[in-house]
């Protein structure tokens, strides 16, 4: 006899409580994550700290989590050596281990959930973790996101070849991985992040050919400007990169142009480092349903975080760059948009914006259907972004669905921010008018076989159904209300493919 008020086909009762629970889970073992873990441990909590470094070579090839640009040595394939480097490059990790924090390297967090609206069935807050071989879940009482920041990268001709990379990626390859494969750099940007990465590169014995700045003046502190100039670094202000020219091994030189005069200049380099801006890595908070808002002074879309550590979710906290990029200001996103505007004015419309789905800027702004659908119909050809905007404000998720920009295996890391900036430029608005394109679990692109729950709960297997398991839904219409109804109900059960 069935119990009143229970649907055996619903999710409740099928997601078991996590076998393992920790009081505090810290995602990200950088300075902020390690400090947060130490603090929690000092307060007596049981703490698990995970860090995804060293990232597998497969994910690096997809530019996860940074825009690596393929400029790493073969050392990244040597897992043991990489693990050693990652650990020894970060003394805070050793301190955490000594203090009794459990530290797991090469483990990523691809999703996290807390019980609440739409998820009443979840027995406990849980995070999804994975290494190269398998995925698992761990329960937590408190989750501290110390996921850091990611480079905002922009497109120009040749940006999709090896050697064009982000500043954060360069920093990681130099300091954490010791696996950078370039020698001579051109750096885009002249603000504090560009200055910092230039100083780091020089300290590591690399050549820095030039810093290229779209605005008329150097953006960073004058002391840094002078010191770098003294070290032989050239500052090219009022210039836009027009093309990165390269060969089989990637970039060989960068051509820049003065948009005012049209004067061209060629910078010899094997690496172009995009140091235009950083954005907080908020993907897990978005999956959790935590509040995010465009806050240029924090570097872009950042957690709504009263006091800088709390989030809109009681169980979830933020620490470090994810809570706000140090040195960001109210003008930070406007500066990125100035870069985008200049690149749009000087580069050809065929420039690829979304590398995974091969969407050009022209196709994006025309809201053109993807090339696998062939030539657009006359009706579609008559439509573009301008006409779409007549129906309502620009929405990146909508444009993503139509053009596929941001729909590829890199999960939009390479083009998310620049698509938003392009939509802002094309609709004559500031970037805060473009809603954040949603992040979806898994926020790391994991193979089916890795992500799979091979050990699912018996209740899940026993009651799994294609759809809701409502038998009456699938009775052939002609049989409804006839004597055949019970026969069909008997042979079908609730199951029917949709």
């Amino acid at each position, binding site marked *: 006899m069935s119990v009143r008020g229970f649907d055996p086909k619903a999710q409740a009762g099928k997601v078991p409580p996590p076998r393992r629970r920790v009081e505090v889970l810290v995602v990200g073992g950088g300075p902020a994550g390690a400090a947060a873990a130490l603090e929690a441990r000092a307060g007596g909590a049981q703490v698990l700290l995970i860090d995804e470094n060293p990232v597998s070579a497969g994910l690096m090839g997809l530019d996860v989590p940074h825009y690596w640009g393929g400029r790493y040595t073969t050392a990244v394939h040597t897992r043991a050596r990489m693990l050693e480097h990652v650990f020894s490059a970060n003394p805070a990790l050793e301190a955490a281990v000594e203090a009794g924090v459990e530290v797991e390297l090469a483990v990523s967090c691809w999703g996290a959930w807390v019980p609440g609206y739409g998820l009443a069935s979840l027995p406990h807050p849980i995070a999804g973790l994975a290494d190269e071989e398998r995925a698992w879940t761990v329960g937590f009482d408190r989750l501290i996101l110390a996921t850091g920041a990611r480079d905002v990268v922009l497109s120009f001709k040749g940006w999709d070849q090896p050697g064009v990379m982000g500043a954060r990626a360069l920093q990681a390859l130099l300091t954490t991985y010791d696996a950078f494969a370039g020698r001579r750099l051109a750096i885009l940007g002249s603000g504090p992040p560009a200055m910092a990465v230039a100083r780091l590169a020089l300290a590591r014995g690399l050549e820095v050919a030039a810093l290229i700045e779209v605005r008329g003046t150097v953006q960073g502190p004058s002391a840094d400007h002078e010191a770098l100039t003294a070290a032989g670094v050239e500052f090219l202000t009022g210039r836009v990169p027009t093309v990165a020219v390269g060969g089989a091994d990637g970039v060989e030189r960068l051509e820049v142009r003065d948009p005012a005069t049209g004067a061209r200049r060629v910078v010899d380099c094997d690496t172009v480092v995009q140091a235009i801006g950083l954005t907080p890595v908020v993907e897990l908070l978005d999956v959790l349903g935590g509040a995010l808002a465009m806050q240029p002074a924090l570097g872009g879309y950042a957690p709504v975080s009263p006091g800088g550590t709390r989030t809109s979710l009681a169980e979830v906290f933020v620490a470090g760059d994810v809570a706000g990029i140090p040195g960001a200001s109210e003008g930070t996103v406007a500066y990125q948009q100035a870069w985008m505007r200049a690149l749009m004015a000087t580069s050809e419309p065929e420039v690829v914006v979304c590398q995974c789905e091969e969407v050009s800027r022209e196709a994006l702004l025309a809201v053109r259907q993807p090339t696998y659908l062939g030539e657009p119909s006359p009706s579609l050809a008559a439509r573009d972004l301008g006409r779409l905007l007549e129906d309502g404000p620009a929405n990146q998720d909508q444009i993503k669905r139509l053009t596929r920009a941001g*729909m590829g295996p890199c999960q939009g890391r390479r083009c998310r921010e620049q698509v938003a900036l392009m939509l802002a430029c094309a609709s004559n608005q500031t970037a805060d008018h473009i809603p954040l394109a949603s992040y979806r679990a898994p926020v790391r692109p994991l193979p089916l076989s890795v992500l799979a729950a091979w050990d699912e709960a018996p209740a899940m297997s026993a009651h799994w159904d294609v759809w809701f398991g409502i038998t009456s839904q699938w009775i052939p219409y002609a049989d409804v209300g006839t004597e055949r109804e019970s026969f069909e109900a008997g042979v079908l059960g609730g199951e029917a493919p949709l």
Partner: protein
Amino acid sequence: MSAPSRTGAQVLVIGAGVTGLSAAWWLARSGVDVLVLDKGLVGWEASGRNGGGASHYQSPLFHEEQRLWPLMDDLLGYSTEYRRERVIFATTEHHLAHYRQIARQCRDLGYQVDDLDPAQVREFVTLAGDNVLGGIHLLRFGGQANPQRTVQAYAWALQDLGGRILQHTPAVRILAAGGRVTGVETPRGVFGCDQLVVAAGPQGERLLAQVGVRLPLAPARAEMIVTEPAPLMPVGGADGNGMYGRQTLRGNLAYGGGPHEWMDVDETGPQTRPSTPLLRNLARRVAELLPKAAHLRVIRSWAGVVENTPDGRPVIDRLDDPGNLTVATMSSVGFGLSPATGHAIRDLVLDGRCSFADLAKLSIKRFEGLPDDWREAKGWRPTTHAQALEAMAEQE
């Protein structure tokens, strides 16, 4: 009917999901002045977040669904990514027996279905493995489309015919007087109409209650996962193993199925809750169904909030009171049927009866006398893990 007015329309449609948009498009094709109101973007809820399947042999609209889909790209003027054919295949005897029953039902309706042996399945579904026991092949019918592209195609095709859509304009109240709907109140003002169509998904119940109409609905979330692209298989519409889904024309594998989560939805509609840990159970079943795809990376997931009626069947009904009100809910199975549903709604609005199918069993009247606590009785309310364990213990 009155002359077109910018502050109203001959026919107002509440809800720019596939059902509302298709209805509006069909009405516009008949020269009717139509205005669609939506709380958000076109097709933003479950209409754009589903498996895209188009073979609903249980429905009275099935023949019209099958007739229309191959024509839709041309009729709309935009691509829907519709592709015909479907292979449903099994890796367990239980599923195989079940699929054979589906084949029988389709043959009873006059459609050709072939039984496939394992080798034939692998010929059509090249990512399938050695675990295949057999399958069925829906020939020259069935198939799938891209929900996201299709909803936008409806919206654009409607605009091309002069129809209007107001996004970000929620219907707050249905206004009625003298047994007739007179208009709809929104934050942008009141829009008058001669006829109203309510195709508002989970929000329909609350809206209709304002005019004394009871449409019993229970909202729930269902979710899917998507992999990176694989080379195209000879038949992309290939599913089974307790899942619905397809290989898209781009090559991605998109599959859903498994347990749903009952929800409560207020006037503003569902809040975002795109996925849950269920994506791991889906990943497992895709890897079992298509072992040669097990290495593919899962790159996103999505969920749609759908509504179900107590018997899981649609309501498509022109009411007696108010007499100028047509109500539609597809009870969680709306996307694939939408070309036919829109046609049926057009007929009900303009002619008072559907020209191509008997819809008598989809009348709202069948729920008269339904107890107020029907959702509690079925357990179709948000349920916690602890409550579920208690109920399961009682069952044993």
